[in-house]
């Protein structure tokens, strides 16, 4: 494997969250709807029908480009991409060829050594989706296809990266971060299982030293012969991005080592078997006869419009991650919080309510512990519960001041999650107020010692571990409200005194 470099690029299609389709105002909410009930002459490609571009789609494309640090085109247009297929009613797809709305940009990933690496983006452009086709077999064995045009002309953004990733891991990181950005921006739900985000890795292996990356292309050095690239489709989940690339990497190296020919092709990932399977060869580029769509006037994007869109971008995961880790929060804990923008927004309020770093760290423990368990059980997120961020910090402060013991805190939090309330009142109601008053505790300790002379004897005989049992007795007497540390201190003190007297 070490003789070869792996070169990976990603092509990702995203369904932006618009109400209507890209070039007509049929509803774009086609998921699980009756077939062919969301169509019109435009998306059916009927003669004479004229497209009109969706303003929201353009805005969301600009928003996405800005979050990716891309350059937004001052003038952008649509082009026709021609080929014949039943799921493409007009005989061409309206897409963007040479004036895409966004160019450049990047997403950061970590390479194998843990260094931050900027994965460059070539472009992001707008286009329309094709209809949905389903394969069927007749009784006599002949094959046919059923087509549903509800999906026809639904908006799509296509993002293409430069061929600068070196592993399945880097590709997975890129895809995951891109998905998170889309969700944070509310540009798309990007649910892969619903086809709202479709990842296609393009990869090749090359002998070390035989290639160089120049002007966005992989070029041979000298008269070296380069291996062709493989495109992988049917990646049904983010984890498959990594698995598929890794499998293909191994497969290609094996072929190369055996001296077998590798031809440029498209393969499909079979998740069940964990392998890629041949679909078709792709040696010649298709002649799509691109030309600007005369029915769609060019779009000008002003600096003012870009500035307006910039304002709508929330604080992105990258920035928040840094903020959280600077507060001392572990990477892994921070990432759990950041996974959901609403959770991150909630956490930002928790940070605002805290007066010290330690309080934030304690809050994180509850968020990823007690609260996370509750969320799993109730199928509700913390921001859908009755526990406000300020109340969470209040509970943390109450533990800090000794009002309640650490053990009691989860009970209070669980109450507050289910019903809006005041932490102090709940502590009263549940009788969880921690007793730290030495007088009270001493009373209980003396009682426990008096009632358990047999255990005390065990202690005097040398078995000092029974202290725990006696402390347990006191905790039971106080119904859990005694400060366990103070109880232990006092118990140990009294027992050693006893020992001195009688020992």
């Amino acid at each position, binding site marked *: 494997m070490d003789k070869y470099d792996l070169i990976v690029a990603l092509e990702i299609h995203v369904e932006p969250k*618009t*109400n*209507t389709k890209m070039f*007509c*105002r*049929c*509803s774009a909410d086609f998921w699980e709807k*009756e*077939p*062919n*009930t*969301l*169509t*019109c*002459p435009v998306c*059916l490609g009927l003669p004479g029908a004229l497209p*009109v*571009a*969706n*303003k*929201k*789609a*353009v805005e969301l494309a600009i928003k996405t480009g800005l979050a990716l640090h891309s350059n937004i085109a001052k003038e952008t*247009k649509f082009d026709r991409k*021609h*080929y*014949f*297929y*039943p*799921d*493409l009613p007009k005989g061409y797809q309206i897409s963007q060829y040479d004036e895409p709305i966004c160019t450049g940009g990047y997403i950061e990933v970590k390479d194998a050594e843990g260094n931050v690496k900027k994965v460059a983006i070539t472009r992001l452009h707008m286009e329309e989706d*094709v209809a*949905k*086709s*389903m*394969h069927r077999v007749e009784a006599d064995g*002949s*094959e*046919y*296809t*059923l*087509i*549903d*045009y509800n999906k026809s002309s639904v908006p799509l953004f296509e993002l293409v990266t430069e061929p600068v990733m070196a592993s399945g891991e880097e590709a997975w990181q890129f895809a995951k971060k891109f998905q998170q950005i889309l969700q944070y921006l509310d540009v798309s739900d990007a649910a892969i299982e619903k086809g709202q985000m479709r990842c296609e890795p393009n990869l090749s292996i090359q002998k070390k030293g035989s290639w160089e990356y120049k002007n966005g292309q992989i070029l041979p050095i000298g008269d070296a012969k380069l291996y062709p690239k493989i*495109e992988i489709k049917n990646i049904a989940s983010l984890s498959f991005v990594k698995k598929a690339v890794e499998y293909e990497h191994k497969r290609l190296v094996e072929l190369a080592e055996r001296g077998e020919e590798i031809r440029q092709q*498209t393969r499909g990932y079979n998740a069940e078997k964990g392998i890629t399977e041949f679909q078709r060869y*792709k040696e010649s580029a*298709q*002649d*799509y*006869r691109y030309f*600007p769509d*005369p029915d*769609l*006037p*060019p*779009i*000008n994007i002003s600096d003012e419009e870009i500035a307006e869109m910039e304002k709508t971008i929330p604080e992105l995961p990258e920035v928040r991650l840094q903020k959280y880790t600077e507060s001392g929060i572990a990477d892994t804990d921070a990432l759990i919080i950041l996974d959901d923008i609403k959770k991150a927004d909630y956490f930002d309020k928790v940070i605002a309510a805290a007066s010290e770093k330690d309080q934030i760290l304690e809050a994180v423990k509850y968020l990823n512990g007690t609260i996370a368990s509750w969320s799993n059980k109730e199928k509700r997120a913390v921001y859908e519960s009755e526990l406000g961020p300020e109340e969470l910090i209040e509970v943390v402060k109450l533990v800090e001041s000794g009002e309640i013991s650490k053990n009691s805190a989860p009970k209070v939090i669980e109450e507050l999650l289910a019903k809006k309330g005041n932490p102090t009142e709940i502590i009263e109601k549940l009788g969880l107020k921690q007793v730290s008053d030495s007088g009270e505790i001493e009373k209980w300790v003396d009682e426990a010692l008096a009632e358990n002379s047999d255990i005390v004897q065990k202690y005097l005989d040398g078995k000092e571990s029974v202290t725990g049992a006696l402390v347990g007795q006191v905790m039971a007497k106080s119904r859990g409200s005694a400060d366990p540390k103070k109880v232990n201190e006092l118990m140990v003190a009294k027992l050693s005194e006893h020992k001195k007297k009688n020992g």
Partner: protein
Amino acid sequence: MAKTKVTKEDIEHVSELIMVKLTDEEKAKLPSQLVSVLEYVGVIDEIDTKDTKETHHVTGLQDVLDEDVVRPSLTQQESLSNAIETEDGYVKVKGKLSAGADA
């Protein structure tokens, strides 16, 4: 830059792209017929367009965008009314066609 030579391969390539079947007779006749058409149109090359911007749109319109508000769609029956064959509300086409022919 009008083409002045049209080969049989050109004819075959284009007929594949536009999915028009040609007989051998047509394939033989077409090159010379097309060349004369191309030569006639080639008179355009006599104009100096060095300083002319490439024309993509002729209406002078710009920034025509629709608000993202849903408008009613056709009924399923209307939608399928011109389909040669349908099944359970879908358009039916012979042959195995997996999603998407191209990249």
